[in-house]
């Protein structure tokens, strides 16, 4: 069994329902994401269009993150999922450097690397990943790519010639496919990021991986004494970040 994902970009309407469902299901902290939908505008007014690309871990068959992880915190499950054991992770960020898709983040609460696991905990219980359930247009298709009768396999066969993966030149063999994708949606260097023209210009991201309020000394003291900010929730973290911005 090899579990894979396919997103039909012709069906995706950019509602971000999958993003929210993922955040809620996996309690993904602020400033981090496991799945996000990127918006790209193409063309000049009035000849314009907007495309949406859901981006998540590609669960590569030849995963660079798994290879570089020094302690096997990143490992393959029998069903092909690239899973992560946060109890073993040492926080070296090697996986973040290795992932060609920028899909791994340093969780500011656990201070370990984390990423999309295709909702491995739900799959174990016979459920679909939360993003699949939330998608109103069924643009997210999930299943066993080795089973010829599965919906994802049939979808891939029906759309032969129009199925792509991100960065095939990296030889990572992603188990995450796109139908209806193009250079603009799948190649990060094909489009511009013009300062001041973003749809949501005030989105803030951390200027370094992990918790900005955790010093180097905290890395040593925290496991013994705990952290004064242990009770931080999303709101207080946001308040602290915005104070820092000012």
């Amino acid at each position: 069994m090899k579990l894979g994902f396919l997103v039909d970009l012709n069906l995706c309407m950019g509602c971000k329902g999958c993003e929210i469902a993922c955040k809620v299901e996996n309690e993904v902290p602020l400033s981090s994401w496991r799945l996000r939908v990127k918006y790209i505008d193409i063309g000049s007014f009035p000849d314009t269009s907007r495309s949406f690309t859901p981006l998540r871990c590609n669960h590569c068959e030849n995963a660079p993150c798994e290879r570089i992880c020094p302690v096997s915190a990143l490992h393959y499950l029998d069903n092909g999922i690239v899973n992560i054991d946060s109890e073993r992770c040492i926080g070296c960020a090697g996986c973040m450097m290795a992932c060609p898709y920028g899909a791994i983040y340093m969780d500011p609460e656990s201070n370990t690397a984390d990423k999309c696991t295709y909702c491995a905990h739900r799959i174990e219980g016979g459920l679909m990943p939360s993003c699949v359930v939330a998608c109103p247009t069924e643009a997210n298709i999930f299943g066993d790519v080795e089973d010829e009768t599965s919906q994802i396999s049939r979808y891939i066969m029906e759309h032969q010639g129009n199925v792509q993966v991100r960065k095939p030149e990296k030889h990572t063999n992603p188990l995450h496919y796109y139908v209806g994708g193009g250079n603009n949606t799948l190649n990060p260097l094909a489009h511009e990021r013009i300062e001041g023209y973003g749809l949501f210009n005030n989105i803030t991201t951390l200027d370094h991986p992990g918790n900005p309020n955790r010093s180097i000394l905290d890395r040593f003291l925290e496991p013994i004494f705990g952290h004064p900010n242990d009770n931080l929730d999303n709101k207080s973290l946001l308040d602290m970040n915005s104070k820092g911005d000012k």
Partner: protein
Amino acid sequence: MDHVSTIEATKAIVTMDVAHTGIIWGWMITLNMWAKSIGTGVILVGAFLLYRHKHEDMPSLRWLMPLISFIALNVFLFFTLIDLHQPFRMIHIFTHPHWTSSITVGAWLASIFLVLVSIMMFTSFFTHFSEFRKNCAVAKAVRSKDGLYEKVFPFTVFLAFPVTMYTAIIMSQSAARELWVPGAELIQMLLAAFMVGSASFILIGGKWAEAVKKDLAMILAISVLFSFIMYMGEYFFSYKAAEVEATLAYIHSGGPYFLDFWTGMLLGYIIPFIIATTMNDNRTMMKFAAVTTFIGLYFAKSTWLEIPQLLPLS
């Protein structure tokens, strides 16, 4: 919304992207590589000097070489440790090693290397300073094992090569950053070790024989020249993958990385090369070249480490 009409959308524009940003490996990893180059470089250059010259020509080399290496390696390991988000779990590298990872292999090799260097340092230190803690039982025991130095030394020199070069494999395993080409990085790591290894001895070897100093100047000149040529080749002639060109565009287009890169080239490569080839009999100038080598190498390593991390990956 006047500004919207001014967009010339000949290219697609990202209007919403919340990619994970920021430098993942920053100054701590730069210092890690910089200190490791010193730790291995003094052993490699020291071995060359011991092979070429008599011990009397460089009387302090035997104990200073492992001492400098020991200090530098501890700086290297210190920054490796504090860069981890879970430093106490460093032990997992030894209890749950994953051998496909060059981080694991490197950590093991560096640890073994440090043990060998420590043996050399303690035996040579207590032998050289024979009056220090003369009656101490531990000191006596260490002095009695002085022969270990010569036995351990060949293995230490052999290990210095992979220890100095394994970071290049980590960079190569960082599949997202195409600027780091393993072949070039392996040689750059080795040349960096020879640069700062020779620079270290230029600083401390004031009373050493002239022939030794000439050799040190030659090692410094050759290593900075080769390293500089490699950087220039990558800087000006990298007509390779789009990602490499986009990465280099960050330096070419000016800004802080442009300044950092050329500061590194000037201090670490151009100045030491000129001094080492034209004024190598001038002690003060050679020491100046050694100092600029240390500073320049840090800038070069820092720039080369950080710029590929600025590329959007998704």
